[in-house]
């Protein structure tokens, strides 16, 4: 495998963005700024489903040619 400095720089840039996101997630979680209302739906609600329908409307088919070098 031939690894060039450009590949490393691109990989580093993406990795830094991911690392920044992970730091932001931790800071937000510890600051408890997310919506705090916790209402477990499974525990506190009961559904009695009375009507349901899944009506098929139409179908469409498209196609494209896959070129050799994209295989």
């Amino acid at each position, binding site marked *: 495998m031939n690894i060039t400095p450009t590949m490393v720089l691109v990989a580093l840039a993406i990795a830094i963005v991911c690392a920044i996101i992970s730091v932001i997630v931790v800071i937000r979680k510890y600051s408890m700024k997310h919506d705090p209302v916790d209402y477990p739906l499974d525990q506190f609600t009961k559904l009695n489903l*009375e009507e349901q329908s899944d009506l098929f409307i139409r179908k469409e088919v498209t196609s494209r040619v896959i070129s050799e070098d994209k295989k």
Partner: protein
Amino acid sequence: MPEQTAIYECPNCGAALTFNAAEQLFTCDFCLSKFSRDEVLNANSREKMREQEAAEEAFNAQMNEYECKQCGAHIIADENTVASTCAYCHNPVVLVGRLSGEMKPQKIIPFGYDKAAAEEKFFQFVKKKWFVPKAFFVKEQVEKIAGIYYPFWVTDVNTDSKIQARATKVRTWRNGSREYTETSYYEIYRRGKIHFEDLTTAALSEADKKMLEGILPYPSAALEEFSMPYLSGYAAKKRDIGQDDIKAELKGRIDNYSERILRATVGSYTTLNVYGRESRVLNSHWDYSLLPVWVLTYRDEKRGKTYVYTMNGHTGKVHGELPVSRWKLAALFGAVATVLTGLFTLIIGGLMQ
């Protein structure tokens, strides 16, 4: 004229009783006797009960001054306080007049554990948080921990809800050098009756709503009929937010929950786009409830900052901002960047070959 107060006295020695959350009994700190709620209520003589009822009827909502029945001290309390401790003799006092008529709660959840257990639960919670500075939480820096009954509206609602949506199923396959994509379109409709149990909303405007609602939920099985003696030994606040003030907010929550519940009944589609929803409230039941909250104030001398935490007085759930160690954050950044750089380099190298 100062408002009348009530102190629940020990039948054996006459000292003030306090509610012991750890044992779920009323205890006397002087003669060490213990009583159940019924024994405490029965111990009040009929004459005392009539005096208390007369005090409730004569209550003037504008008065914020009350008289401690034990020592006679005149204490000023804010208009939302219904239970407190006398600053002079330190006996618990309950402002009975403020919990009468439409201001009388229907339900209460008594404290499930005492102050020492609350502190212990809090430090156990903090120990699990890896990014909190190790030497940050020291028991000596806990400025204040107070047990307070806060007012909430606990609502049961029945709705007739429906959603309309458009969905697609996408399938692809190849034949030689051609790739085919088949998209099927569906019109989805769901309607049903939904029962919501114990939708809980804070009912005190002066309190930080997020701090109170962050410790929800409380277990509905723990709700009991309201009884005044439970307030003894704790502070308590009465509501200043009525049903009409929160109906719109509650309806918004119900609409969102209804959509989530009905969406979950739709089978697996590639895409699902809800374009119409409606929730009609059929009936509702509102209980004005006092729920237990431990409020803990922590002073960080190093940063010169005070942190406030609320803890569910029954389940122990904690809410509040936690400090984050800069060194640990830097270590996280370094570790993630290093590992992912190596991983992405291999992936890009593999793709470019």
